[in-house]
């Protein structure tokens, strides 16, 4: 008959020690201390991580908003032209807050006047049938024109700021949202 070694060792141990379930006071204090230290460490790391993650969250949110606006500005402004005289800054309180431009639809008697502009934390694009009078000789400072129709708008982003700078064959713009400042320019491909 074969020997069951496991049973024997178990009995030996049982005979040698008398086991009581639960913690002694010293054990409890030690466990409490270690747990507290661990917990505090975890909480510190956690709050650190939360802070950093929150920063990343804010940054990504800002970048997300900026990317979306960047896409709109690039797609819209590249169509401006072909006459540089029909690409004009729109000013409010001395700041350039938008660009009014003509989109020439080739081989077609219908052209479109569009304006991309920034108002109350949102970007708008309106359109209307082109008329030379949409581009007066004087400074343009009206955000909306009679007969225009909003073709696109973003949601409102409180704190969003956009400014434009019209250069030779390009428009530079700056998008400031939260603490993220984005500079970019769009090449006016359609200008001749």
């Amino acid at each position, binding site marked *: 008959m074969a020997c069951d070694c496991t049973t024997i060792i178990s009995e030996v141990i049982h005979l040698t020690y008398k086991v009581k379930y639960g913690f002694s006071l010293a054990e409890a204090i030690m466990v409490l201390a270690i747990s507290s230290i661990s917990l505090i460490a975890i909480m510190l790391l956690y709050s650190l991580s939360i802070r950093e*993650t929150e920063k990343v969250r804010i940054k990504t949110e800002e970048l997300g908003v900026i990317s979306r606006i960047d*896409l709109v500005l690039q797609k819209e402004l590249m169509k401006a032209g072909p006459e540089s005289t029909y690409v004009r800054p729109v000013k409010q309180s001395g700041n*350039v807050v938008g660009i009014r431009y003509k989109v020439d639809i080739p081989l077609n008697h219908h052209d479109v006047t569009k304006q991309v502009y920034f108002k109350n934390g949102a970007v708008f694009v309106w*359109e209307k049938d082109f008329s*030379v009078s949409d581009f007066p000789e004087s*400074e343009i400072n009206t955000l909306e024109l009679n007969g225009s129709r909003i073709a696109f708008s973003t949601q409102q982003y409180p704190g969003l700021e956009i400014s434009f700078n019209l250069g030779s*064959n390009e428009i530079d713009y700056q998008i400031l949202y939260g603490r993220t400042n984005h500079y970019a320019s769009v090449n006016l491909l359609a200008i*001749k």
Partner: protein
Amino acid sequence: MKRIGMILPTVLLLLLFVSISSTSLISFVNAKTRDISLAQRKLENQLDAGNTFFALLGYFQKKYSDSAALNIAAINTFSATDTAPEWYNSTIQKMSDGTLEDTYWLQTFDQFQHSFYLPTSTMTLALQELTPGGDIEVVVRPHKVFPNMLLATIRVTRSGFAESIFWGFISPRYFSNWAVFLLNGISNAYYGPGEFVDGPSYYGGSGIGVAINVPPKTEAEKEHPASQGIGATFVGNMMNRKPRIHQLGYNGSPEKKTLWIDENNDGVKDRELLSAQQYVAWTEYGSKYYVYFGASSSKPAKIIIANQLQVDGNDLVLSEILTSETGETLEPGTDALKAEAFTKYFPWYFRSGLTYVTDDIKSSMESKFGEMKSYYQGFIDNNRVVSSQSVLDSYFNSSSIGNNSLGVFFGGAVPTSITYEGKFFDSYYYIEDVSTGNNKITVNAINKLDYGSVEVLTDVLSGQQIFARYNLSGFDTSEKYSVHEYWYIEEYEVWEKNNNGWSRKSRNNSRDVAQVVITKSSEFDSLPPWNAKSFFVTKTGQGAGSVNLLDQDLGTIDMQHAGVFICENDIKVGGGGLPQGTGHGSKLSLVDGRYSFISMAGNIKIIGDIVYNDIYSDIQQYLNKELIGTNVDLNRLVSENNANDMLNLVAIDKDIYMPYEENKNHKNIKIMSNIFAFGNNGSGSFRIEKYEDFNDMGYRHVFGTIVAKSASPTYTYGNNNKIKGFQEFNVYDDRLYSNEDLPVATPESSLLMAFGFGAR
């Protein structure tokens, strides 16, 4: 005794809280990151699609340079299909319920053939190299009337991300795409302050210089480039072989100040740059400051561009300097560098930049001028225009002249042999004006059609007015018609047959004959070919006077045309309406429709006004008056009236000019036309004959483009500084930017152009 531990559950609860909040935060960040990634990929797709378009432009330019034509059907890296790819149809579908802009794009797309050219697999692979990680698809469609104008649509996708679509048009760059094109440039003249060129311009050969006046001006004045005293200003891109500054002036009294730099933008002058500099500072929309300084008596010296500028007593304090602190030269060594510098340092004056004309561009443009003769000769040799003589044949034979002609050629008439009443007439063209009586027959035997000088009279007549002029019915009284009379000379002899047989009664006679082409105005609302009626008349009096039908019994002959009228020799045009129409009393030619008048070997002489009918009523009161200083904006009138009239005047071998005698009493002439004087052997100018002999004639207004080998002065100063000749006031027809309403046979340059961009 059982003890319940609270630590473990507390820890577990905390861990659970941490896990949940961390997971949600990470999920949020992840979602936002995907969002950014999506937007960035979309932007990347958009850029890739645009880059692919311009790569195609480069590829087609090579093909165009090799074969002098942009025939997509002959390019073996593209193959045609009748069915558009699904993504293409889907894009069109999405646009159909879109914005105003989309609606108009779709109208334009409809002008393109329903043949879809797709790149072969080799071509796709080559294009794919431009967009690592992206998938590219391309569809190219040729235009229905101008087959060398292509609509290219590109789609770029990346797996899992939204598509981007980019489209644009590629076509030969017509010479009309420049407001001013001077093949040889001008060596001894320059553009001065107050002048501006309102479209793209080209100055080859000697290039051209500019004298620039820098403001300061008020904000309102700065907004408008025509503001007197600043400029010269170039609204469109200037191509210049030898750009040079003739003079840099300051509009006002420049002061001397010491230039300082404020390094940290705290309002404190940190470092002196240059002492006691005469300068002028100018700001572009209040953002950057351009400080020009150190000019000598005739030459500009240097420029500093800075983001901030303050004047502090005798100091000028700059911060955030964007150029070298010691300034950059405005005219660096080479012509190519000068072009770059002018673009960078004079952005207001070169609004769309300045491009250096390279050796390649210069020689290819010169070659293109030389090729014009064979290009237009091709229209004649390949029977793309029907000869006026053939129309006359068909007219007499009451036969059809076919429907595939682009227009009429006045030249190359070859006498033929005719047998009439038993008489063999050798080298006679036809027999007419037969009269009988007293036992004899008298005939005019036409022995030559002399197209040495074709005079074109153009006007707009109602059906009733047509009846009054030609005694022809069949034209709707309530409709308007574009009426052209092309006058030339018939030489004839008079023969008589009596009982003794035939005898010649007189020789070397001549009379004026015209081919008349009448096209209903509404025809021009659509693309060519246009239906028209033609017949022949002779004059019964002086000038436009009265006319008789060449043969009352024959009525009219149906024809189609695309507005191309080519003459072997001289063309006289302008100042000549018809008595029953609008223009006759005003020495005015009304142009209704789209036409190209081409002289192969002669001059084109402009007499009096040429005015587009669609804007005539708005400009009527300004005939004989100058437009400068008025509120008449020709482009605005074209736009508001939805005008579709346009005229090309093309002189292949010689000049386009205003003769002295016929114009000496006609002030403030209006020429609404695109001028192309290609010339050969020293010709090729757009000029005013004996301009110095005219008294003060006001302005020569050109509405269109001016393309020539060279330009000559149009006026000078006589005694007491009185102007002799015509001053110039030229307005570029904005429709030419994108080939809108372009007449058929508009000359093409050696370059391709891309225009009409859109994206989704």
